[in-house]
C-alpha cells in the first residue's frame, strides 16, 4: 500500500499523485493519512485503484470519481461524491449536505446518517444510507436509486423525475409530485443487490418505494399551486 501523508504534502500533490495512476497501474492500493478535514481530497480520479482516507474530510471528497474505490474512515463534509461517474465511495461515518449530488453513476455508501439534500439532482448514481437522511433529499432526482435504511426528513423527492427512492423507516413528508409507489419484484431485486453491495443487513421487504407521480412533467398552470 502506498501512503500519502497530508501532514507532509499538500492537496495538490495528493491529487496529482492519484491522477497519475493509469488503468494498468500496479499501485492499486493507497492510503491518505492526516486528512484533517481538507477539501477536495481524491477528486477527479480515473483509475481502478482503492484509496482509503484515514480520517474525516471537508467538502467534495471523491468529487467526479471514475473507477476508483474510495473508503473514508471518518465523516465527510458537503458534496461528497458529487457528480460521481462510476466506482464506489464508502463513508464509515456521517455525511453533510448534498451527498452524491448530481452523481451520474457508481455507488455511494454512507454508514452513518446523511444530512439534507442527499442525492439532489442525482442522474444515475446509487446511494445507500445506513442511517437517516435530512430534508429535501432527492430534490429533482433524475435517475438512479436512493436507499435509506433509517428515516427520511421533510419533502423527500420533491420535483423528482425517474429516480427510485426506497425508505425503510418513516418519511416525515413527501415533496411536490412525489408519491408512494408499488414495490414490484424487480424493485426487490434492485434493493437486494444494493443492500448486499452496501454491506447492509436490512431486508428488501422492509422498505417502501417512492417516486415521481409525473404530474408536473409538463408545465400546466393548474399545477402552479403545487410548486
Amino acid at each position, binding site marked *: 500500500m502506498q501512503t500519502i501523508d497530508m501532514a507532509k504534502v499538500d492537496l495538490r500533490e495528493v491529487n496529482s499523485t492519484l491522477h497519475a495512476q493509469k488503468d494498468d497501474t500496479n499501485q492499486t492500493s493507497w492510503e491518505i493519512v492526516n486528512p484533517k478535514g481538507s477539501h477536495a481530497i481524491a477528486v477527479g480520479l480515473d483509475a481502478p485503484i482503492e484509496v482509503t482516507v484515514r480520517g474525516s474530510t471537508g467538502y467534495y471528497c471523491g468529487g467526479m470519481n471514475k473507477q476508483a474505490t474510495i473508503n473514508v474512515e471518518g465523516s465527510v463534509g458537503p458534496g461528497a461524491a458529487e457528480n460521481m461517474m462510476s466506482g464506489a465511495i464508502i463513508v464509515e461515518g456521517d455525511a453533510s449536505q448534498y451527498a452524491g449530488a448530481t452523481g451520474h453513476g457508481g455507488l455511494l455508501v454512507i454508514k452513518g446518517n446523511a444530512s439534507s439534500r442527499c442525492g439532489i439532482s442525482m442522474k444515475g448514481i446509487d446511494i445507500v444510507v445506513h442511517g437517516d437522511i435530512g430534508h429535501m433529499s432527492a430534490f429533482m432526482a433524475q435517475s438512479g436509486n436512493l436507499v435509506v435504511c433509517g428515516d427520511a426528513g421533510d419533502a423527500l423527492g420533491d420535483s423528482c423525475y425517474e429516480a427510485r427512492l426506497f425508505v425503510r423507516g418513516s418519511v416525515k413528508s413527501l415533496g411536490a409530485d412525489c408519491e408512494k409507489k408499488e414495490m414490484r419484484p424487480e424493485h426487490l431485486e434492485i434493493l437486494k443487490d444494493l443492500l448486499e453491495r452496501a454491506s447492509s443487513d436490512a431486508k428488501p421487504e422492509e422498505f417502501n418505494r417512492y417516486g415521481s407521480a409525473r404530474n408536473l*412533467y409538463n408545465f400546466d398552470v393548474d399545477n402552479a399551486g403545487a410548486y
Partner: protein
Amino acid sequence: MTIKDHDESGIPHTTPRQSATFTNDVNSDIRRAAATGIYDIRGGGAKRKVPNFDDLLFLGASISRYPLEGYREKCETKVTLGTRFAKKPIELDIPITIAGMSFGALSGPAKEALGRGADAAGTSTTTGDGGMTPEERGHSSKLVYQYLPSRYGMNPDDLRKADAIEIVVGQGAKPGGGGMLLGQKISDRVAEMRNLPKGIDQRSSCRHPDWTGPDDLEIKILELREITNWLVPIYVKVAGARPYYDTTLAIKSGADVVVLDGMQGGTAATQDVFIEHVGQPTLAIIRPAVQALQDLGMHRKVQLIISGGIRSGADVAKAMALGADAVAIGTAALIALGDNDPKWESEYNELGTTTGAYDDWHEGRDPAGITTQDPELMARFDPVEGGRRLRNYLKVLTLEAQTIARACGKNHLHNLEPEDLCALTVEAAAMAGVPLSGTNWIPGQGGY
C-alpha cells in the same frame, strides 16, 4: 373606417386618445393573460428601452491628443484571459467572445456554426446547459465549458477537454432565475445528454445543488482546479444585478475571469416579466464592477467580460473604454447566423409575429432552423455558411472598434478609457460615470 369628428348636433368630439399607460401592447398582454391564465414565456433579452451604449459618444482626437493613422498604424486587439491562476490562460486574437448558448436551445448545426465562426475569427465559443457536443468541441479550438446548476451532461472528461470553465451563477435576462427547456425541444439526443425522458419539460435550477454563497464557491473553484490540474482559467458568470458586490465576491472566491451579463442579454426562455423587470442595463453595470476590481487591486489581473446587448464595434469599444477586458455576444451572433432574417417573413407571420420580433425560441419552430431540434427546420441551416457569416460579423465588429480606438489615439483597444467618452443623457452620464456632453458634470460624483 372614418371616425366621425362631431356628433349629430354638430358638437365636436375630442380626438380619441390612446393611453400612455394602457398602450396597445399592454392591452394585448392583458388579453393574452385573461385568455390563458399563464404568464408569457419567450426568449431573448429585455426589449424595453433602457439607457445603453447609444447614449455615449467618443470624443476622438484633437489638439490635446493625436490620432493614429487608420490604414497604417497598428491597433492591437489581442487579449489574454485567465492570467491570475491558470497555467494555460486563453489567448484570443479579438476581445469579442461567443456567449454560452446550449445545445438543446440551439440546434447542433447552429452550435457548429458558432464554433466555426469563432474559430475563424480567433476567438472562443462557449457551451451551455446540456453539456458539450462533439461538433462543438471539434469546430472550436478555444471552447469554454459552462458549469451550470443543472449539471446536465456534466462529466469530468468534457471538463478536462475545455479550454476554460465558466461557473454560471446567473445571467442578465433572469438574475435569480432558473430555466426551462420545454418538452417539444427534447429530442432523443437532447434527452440522452440530460439523463431525462424524451418530451418532458426540463427544468434548470436557479442555484447550484452543492454550494451556496461565496465561501462555498471558493471551495468549489478549488475542486474544479484540482480536477483539471490548475491548467485552465475559471470564469464566474453573474447577472449584472449587483455588480460591485458580486464582482468583489467572485474575485475573493478565486475567479480568474468575471463575466457580467446585463439585462439586454438573451436567454433561451423565461417569463417575459422576469426579462423586462429584473436586473440592470448593461451600461450601468460596468463601472461598479471595474471599481470593485480596482478596489482589490485586480483590474487587468482578473479579466472582466461584459455581455448583454453588444451589437457593433462602437459598443465593443465603449464597453472596453469603461474598463472591460473583453465582451461576449449571443443574440447578435444568432442574428449574424440568420435568426430573424426577413427572408422568413411569411413564416414568421404564420407564427403570429414578424421579422425582428420573433422570440418564441422555446417552441422549437424557428423558421431559420437555429433555435430548434426539428430535423426539417434544422436542415435549412448550413453550418459552414453560418460560420462564414459569423466570422465576417466578428471581423466587422473588430474593424469598427479599431477605427474608433485609432481616432482616440489608442494603439490597443485596452487603452481606451472613460476619458474618451461623453454622454448624451443625464442618466447615461450617471451610469457610465462619464461627463454629460458639453459639460464636465458626472451626475452622482462630486457631491451632487
